[in-house]
């Protein structure tokens, strides 16, 4: 032992019996210093990329998370020209602070509301306020814009004046919504993303049956992803097995058939499926020509759930085949032969001997395909019609069409949570180091 250390570094034995290097430092400290230096060196190589990913990836994700609890629409307005932030509904927020939830709005509350509405209309922020409350109580946007038009000319008593303008203001739900919109941060968007809302007393309740869409869509996303994962497993297992058992020369040629789809543009593959599956497309033509179906009853295989499942199965199949292949290749064929020689039928030998050895590949491929499927956006958007849309498509809808960015961010955060959980599981079971590409 001592000889080995002595050979590695020039050491001398100090008088007290401890090992030291040539310049008299204790060997242990010198070794620790050298290791720390190596550590730092390795770390410095990674630092530039780490900083880059923090800026272009982690910070944006953080900003999205903060957007999902952002509640400022009701109480602050950013002037587009000057860039200043102007507080809104100051008096009303003061009234909410002084009074318990569920308090009947009194004259002071209505006066504060009238002043707030007039001010918001003055600086053209009333649309933003109305939209914010409209998220909670639908159909109230016009209530805000309509009443604000009259608010400037209102005179005391304000309660009567406002209720004169529109009776709906007596609705306690609107007051509850305004109260919850006055807080600095809110979890209301998460509630909305889970089909929940607050009633007039601030209790969390389910929304009406016909407005509950998000949980249904989360469910559909997970069920369809599981189905697609199963389909890729059923299709991927036989060819991975074939590739793994053929001699390398042949399997490398066949592997190209798996890798080419992997390298082909996603949009190209999606386009091909539209071309193949549409009602005047190649597959329907083939079936009509072969007499399987009649020209009048062409199958609707695209722009619905079927289209999403077929196209996504095709697109994600290589992600199943590659991990399966890398697990199956090193399996020694003599195990199965031994089982056969001991009297097992080929089915038993497969089930009891071969299949258990492929489980790591099934797990790795399955998790990877499932993770990728859960977040798919492009393919469902192009071939999914309305019944094949996934949760990602709804996030895009709220980002681009309804412009309810906070709700989009809340939905995205929930999806992110689910994906990160699966990613953590993947790292635990498979290890990201084992991720291979071709």
């Amino acid at each position: 032992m001592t000889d080995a250390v002595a050979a590695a570094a020039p050491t001398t034995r100090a008088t007290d019996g401890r090992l030291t290097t040539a310049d008299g430092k204790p060997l242990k400290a010198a070794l620790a210093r050298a290791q720390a230096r190596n550590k730092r060196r390795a770390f410095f190589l990674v630092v530039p990329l780490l900083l880059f990913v923090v800026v272009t990836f982690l910070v944006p994700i953080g900003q999205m998370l903060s957007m999902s609890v952002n509640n400022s629409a009701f109480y602050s307005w950013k002037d587009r020209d000057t860039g200043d932030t102007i507080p809104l509904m100051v008096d009303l927020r003061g009234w909410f602070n002084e009074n318990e939830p569920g308090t009947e709005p009194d004259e002071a509350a209505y006066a504060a509301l009238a002043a707030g509405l007039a001010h918001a209309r003055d600086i053209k922020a009333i649309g933003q306020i109305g939209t914010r409350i409209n998220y909670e109580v639908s159909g109230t946007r016009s209530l805000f814009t309509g009443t604000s038009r009259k608010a400037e000319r209102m005179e005391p008593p304000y309660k009567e004046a406002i209720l004169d303008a529109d009776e709906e203001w007596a609705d306690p739900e609107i007051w509850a919504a305004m109260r919850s919109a006055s807080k600095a941060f809110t979890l209301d968007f998460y509630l909305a993303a889970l089909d929940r809302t607050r009633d007039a007393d601030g209790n969390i309740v389910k929304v009406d049956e016909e407005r509950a869409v998000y949980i249904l869509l989360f469910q559909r996303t997970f069920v369809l992803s599981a189905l697609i994962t199963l389909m890729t497993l059923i299709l991927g297992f036989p060819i991975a097995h074939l590739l793994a058992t053929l001699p390398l020369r042949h399997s490398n040629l066949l592997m190209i058939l798996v890798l080419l789809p992997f390298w082909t543009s996603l949009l190209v593959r999606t386009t091909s499926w539209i071309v193949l599956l549409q009602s005047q497309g190649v597959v329907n033509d083939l079936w009509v020509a072969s007499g399987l179906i009649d020209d009048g009853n062409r199958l609707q295989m695209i722009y619905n759930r079927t289209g999403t499942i077929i196209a996504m199965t095709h697109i994600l199949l290589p992600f199943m085949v590659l991990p399966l292949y890398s697990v199956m290749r090193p399996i020694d064929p003599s195990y199965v032969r031994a089982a056969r020689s001991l009297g097992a039928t080929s089915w038993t030998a497969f089930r009891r001997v071969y299949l258990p050895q492929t489980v790591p590949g099934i797990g790795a491929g399955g998790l990877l395909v499932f993770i990728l499927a859960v977040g798919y956006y492009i393919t469902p958007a192009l071939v999914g019609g309305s019944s094949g849309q996934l949760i990602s498509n709804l996030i895009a809808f709220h980002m681009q069409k309804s412009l309810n960015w906070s709700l989009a961010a809340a939905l995205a955060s929930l999806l992110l949570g689910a994906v990160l959980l699966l990613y953590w599981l993947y790292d635990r079971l498979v290890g990201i180091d084992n991720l291979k590409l071709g």
Partner: protein
Amino acid sequence: MALPSYASPLEKIWHYLYLVICALIFLFLIAPILIVVPLSFNAEPYFTFTEKMLSLDPTGYSMRWYDLLLTFGMENPEAPRDASWWADAWANAAWINAAKNSVIIGFFATILATFLGTLAALGLSRPEMPFRRTIMAILISPMIVPLIITATGLFFFYSSTGLANTYIGIIMAHATLGIPFVIITVTATLVGFDHSLTRAAASLGADPTTTFFKITMPLILPGVISGALFAFVTSFDEVVVVLFVAAHDQQTIPRQMWNGIREQISPAILSVATILVVISIALLTTVELLRRRSEKLRGVSPG
């Protein structure tokens, strides 16, 4: 996969059935990609084979959709095809402009991703790297996190920092998406790396820089190039981030395809698809050749 001589008749039937099933699955994998090639030469604006195409009549085929790629968006497509016509096409044709944008964005995103990714992979593959697992998980996550989430985050971030609608913004985003591929391929190359080679170089008097460029770099170069090609393809095929953070006039090829498929799908899309399929075949061939070369260099398995 040869059938053993002791196989029973039932097993023989199953064996051939299995081969047929595998052939069908391979057909399922490859047919959708190859089907667009003949269809893109259709003389009619249909997405299926016409009678004339099936009887191999030359009049059933045409280059009209490829021609449309050039003329679409031109100021004067009817003019005689001389130098000024080509100049017009180069400057104004919508698909050519989209291709230019795609190549510019892809090129710079690839450079950025490859440089930073290779450097990090060198660090990550050292045994003394601290927090290796966590850092690796963070650096790979852009590949795992759904694109729509990344795009949403980038939209908020870029609109608050003024990077929205800029080329730099898109290039940075695409580089981030390409980095996991560079890291995976380069670390895979470094797994079998023989560290005694660098030690030998050092003992012969080479300083670390010389060692890196003369010894390490040539050995890992195939992996680096594969990673770079992966990063380029990722950027070249990316549409979600572009849809969220790019300006309206910043068209790329996938974005133009996306618009084409959503609005009015025409066979011109198929001719673009054919060109992209040809490009991907070329890239795949390059990567396969590189992989074999790398395996030969490192003396791993015979390809």
